[in-house]
C-alpha cells in the first residue's frame, strides 16, 4: 500500500516537474541586473569570463545575449578588440542576432 502511494505521488509530481535547461546560465542574469543598476563593468567582466571558461565543461551552450552583454561591458571599459570578438561569438552562436549586430556597428562605439 505504501509503495503504491509513493509511486502515485511520484507520478503525479512528475507531471508538473520542470525539464532541464537548454543553456548554461551561470551569472548572466545577475550581471544584467547589476548592469541596469550601474554597477562597475570591470567586476562583471571578471565574473562572466569565469562563466565562459566553465561553460565548456558543462556541455551546454551559453544563453542568448551572454556574449553580447560581455561585448557591451568590454565596450564600456574601452576594449574594442574584445568587444568585437564577443559580438562575433554571439553572431556565430545565434544567427538571429546578425541583423541587429550589423545595425549596432553604425551607431555603437566603444567608449570610456
Amino acid at each position, binding site marked *: 500500500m505504501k509503495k503504491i502511494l509513493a509511486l502515485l505521488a511520484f507520478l503525479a509530481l512528475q507531471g508538473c516537474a*520542470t525539464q532541464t535547461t537548454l543553456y548554461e546560465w551561470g551569472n548572466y542574469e545577475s550581471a544584467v*541586473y547589476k548592469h541596469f543598476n550601474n554597477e562597475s563593468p570591470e567586476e562583471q567582466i571578471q565574473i562572466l569570463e569565469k562563466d565562459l571558461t566553465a561553460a565548456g565543461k558543462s556541455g551546454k551552450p551559453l544563453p542568448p545575449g551572454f556574449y553580447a*552583454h560581455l561585448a*557591451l561591458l568590454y565596450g564600456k571599459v574601452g576594449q574594442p578588440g574584445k568587444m568585437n570578438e564577443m559580438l562575433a561569438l554571439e553572431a556565430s552562436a545565434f544567427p538571429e*542576432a546578425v541583423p541587429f549586430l550589423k545595425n549596432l556597428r553604425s551607431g555603437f562605439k566603444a567608449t570610456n
Partner: protein
Amino acid sequence: MRKIYLILVLSIFALLGGCAAPKPYDYSAFNERMPRAIVVLPPINDSLDVKATYGVYATTTKPLAEAGYYVLPVTLVDEAFRLNGLQTPNDIHALSPKKIKEVFGADAGLYLTVKEYGTKYYVVGSASVVTVEAKLIDLESGAQIWDGSASASSEEGKNNQGGLAALLIGALLNQIVGTVVDQSSNVARLTNTRLLSAETPNGILWGARSPNFGKQK
C-alpha cells in the same frame, strides 16, 4: 479499503487539477506567425517604484530562451534605444512595429507593463508583490499573437506558525531582509518565469530552438 482507494483517486485528480489549463487559449495567430527571435522592450512602469522597469527587464530572457526563442540581448537593446534618444519605455512602446523590426531584426516584440512592484507593509508583515502584463506582437503585421499576465509574492508558501510572538519576529525579519536586498527583483524573476515559460497554462508556445517545438497545447 475501498474508501482509501476513493480518497487516493480523488487526491490524484486534485493534484492533476493543479497542472491543468484553466481554459483553452486561441493560439491560431501565434502558430501562424511562429516567431524565432523575440525582442523584449523595456517594460512600462505603472507601479509606484522607480526600480520596476529594470527590476523586471533583467529576468525576462531566461524563460523565453528556455522556451526555445532567440531573445535579443536586453542590455544592448536598451543601449540602442538610449543612443537613439529614446529614454522612456512609453516612447519606445509608441514606435511602429515595422521600425522595431527594421532595427532589431526580430520577428516578434514583447511589450510588458509592470502593474505592481515593491513592498507592501501590513500591521504584522510585509510582502513584495510583482505583477506584469504581457503582449506579444508580430512586428511585420503589428498584430497581437499572444497575451498574458502573472503575479508573484514574497510571502508565497510561508505559513504562520508558532503564535503571535513568532509572527512579530517574523515580520521584523522580513522587513529587514526586504530593505537590504531588492527583494522585489527576486519576486520579479518568479513573475517572469510564470508569465513567459512555455510550461505555464495559456503561456507562450514552444519555440524552434526547444526539443519540445511542435508539442503544442
